[in-house]
């Protein structure tokens, strides 16, 4: 089974410093997001079944870091990690950031993207399918919810991200 942390990433000079600083900056936000989801959507964990203990590596290609998720209700973990220091993951999901966000929010049907090249899945496919189905059972928008945590500035950032994304990737919409 291919494990993504064994795959070498193309690295630019100085990238690791940027990545580490970004991780530090973003970590408090991630912690708030994940705690809020756990409180508001407890049924999510049941759908994960045995994969509550699985390490997921979510790799938004254009961000300077990847996300390490372990959806264990007893010790919930979502942290930003520099790509070079990513842990061995049970499952890896790699794609453009907004595509990942849209899949989470069911704004785009995941089936096509999940199993096409817009999104790369490696490792335990069942873990990924469980995560997807668990997230799909959440009402409302995770992106909106998260943005709302940060008030008007948060919403503005999300709106800008979306505009950029739609402009760049109209081709993806019809997959």
């Amino acid at each position, binding site marked *: 089974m291919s494990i993504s942390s064994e795959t070498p990433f193309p690295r630019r000079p100085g990238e690791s410093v940027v990545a580490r600083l970004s991780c530090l900056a973003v970590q408090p936000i991630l912690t708030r997001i994940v705690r809020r989801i756990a409180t508001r959507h407890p049924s999510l964990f049941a759908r994960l079944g045995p994969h509550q203990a699985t390490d997921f590596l979510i790799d938004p290609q254009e961000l300077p870091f990847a996300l390490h998720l372990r959806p264990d209700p007893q010790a919930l973990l979502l942290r930003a990690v520099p790509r070079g220091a990513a842990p061995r993951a049970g499952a890896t999901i790699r794609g453009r950031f907004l595509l990942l966000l849209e899949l989470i929010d*069911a704004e785009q049907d995941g089936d096509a993207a999940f199993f096409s090249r817009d999104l790369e899945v490696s490792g335990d496919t*069942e873990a990924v*399918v469980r995560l997807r189905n668990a997230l799909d059972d959440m009402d409302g928008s995770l992106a909106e919810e998260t943005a709302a945590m940060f008030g008007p500035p948060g919403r503005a950032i999300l709106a800008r991200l979306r505009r950029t994304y739609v402009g760049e990737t109209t081709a993806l919409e019809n997959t």
Partner: protein
Amino acid sequence: MSLAELICPAGTPAALRTAVDAGADAVYCGFQDATNARNFPGLNFTPDELAASVAYAHERGTKVLLALNTYPPAGKVDLWYQAADIGARTGVDAFIVADMGVADYIARVHPQVRLHLSVQAAASSPEAIRYYCENFGVKRVVLPRILTIPEIRQIRTEIPCEIETFIFGNHGLMVEGRCSLTNFLTGQSTNMDGVCSPASDVEYVRDADGSMSSQLAGFTIDRFGPEEKAGYPTICKGRYTAPHRPEGYYAFEEPVSLNLSRLLPELIDAGVHAFKIEGRQRSKSYVRGVVRAFRAAVDDIRAGRQANMADLVALTEGQKQTQGAFETKKWR
């Protein structure tokens, strides 16, 4: 004239609410176990979730159909009986069944609940359908996706029950309920366990030349060039070689989606009572988009207006679509 009910898929409670809100006449779903043919990881309903979902649907005038459409292996029949008992207690509007033993149980123990014959029973002739109607009181048959519209019209005149046909979604190739391909490669059975190409056995392998293989239990179901879009490794949609086809070809079917939107008026005219949208394993976004579009189209047709077919055709844009066997015998 046919009522043209819209029967919509729900893999989770959120998807069920989405389907109800988007205008489904009925939603079909299943429990989180082998009693239904979409026993996929992280999908389906607990008994409590089903109860809450039935309440939500009934408050809005939508029916809930419970799929009990797999074949219990000997020694495990009780699981199916218990599922039927829970469903009856919960107030589901119908059971969708395939196994004769399960049908007989429900007919005897829960005679007040409607029985629908699942496509998994593969009843494709008036005689087969009448067997289930006369013996178990089946009120509706879900027809296999192998019949042409004139054949459906003919069947309608010879059976005492309603007809439901698939109009959209995954296009199954094999006679449902008679396929052990998944079990042959993975050890998990479609009929007995409710799985089809289970995710636990799926792997995508990137090759050195940039191409990618989709594998099921270590068998290469397809291989994609660097520019080609990869698909999920379903055995009946894989590419293989044969003595006359050394280049590799889709031996059974290309990965296409069924879309009968253009044929809706003809199907209604042929006496089809209910239209089924496939896809309990798909996302809320799929459910929302497809149900809304078909709701509008069916309403237009029933009101004598021209339906906006362009919207329906767009649902599968970018993917290949087919009218399958419904349009022409040449499909066979």
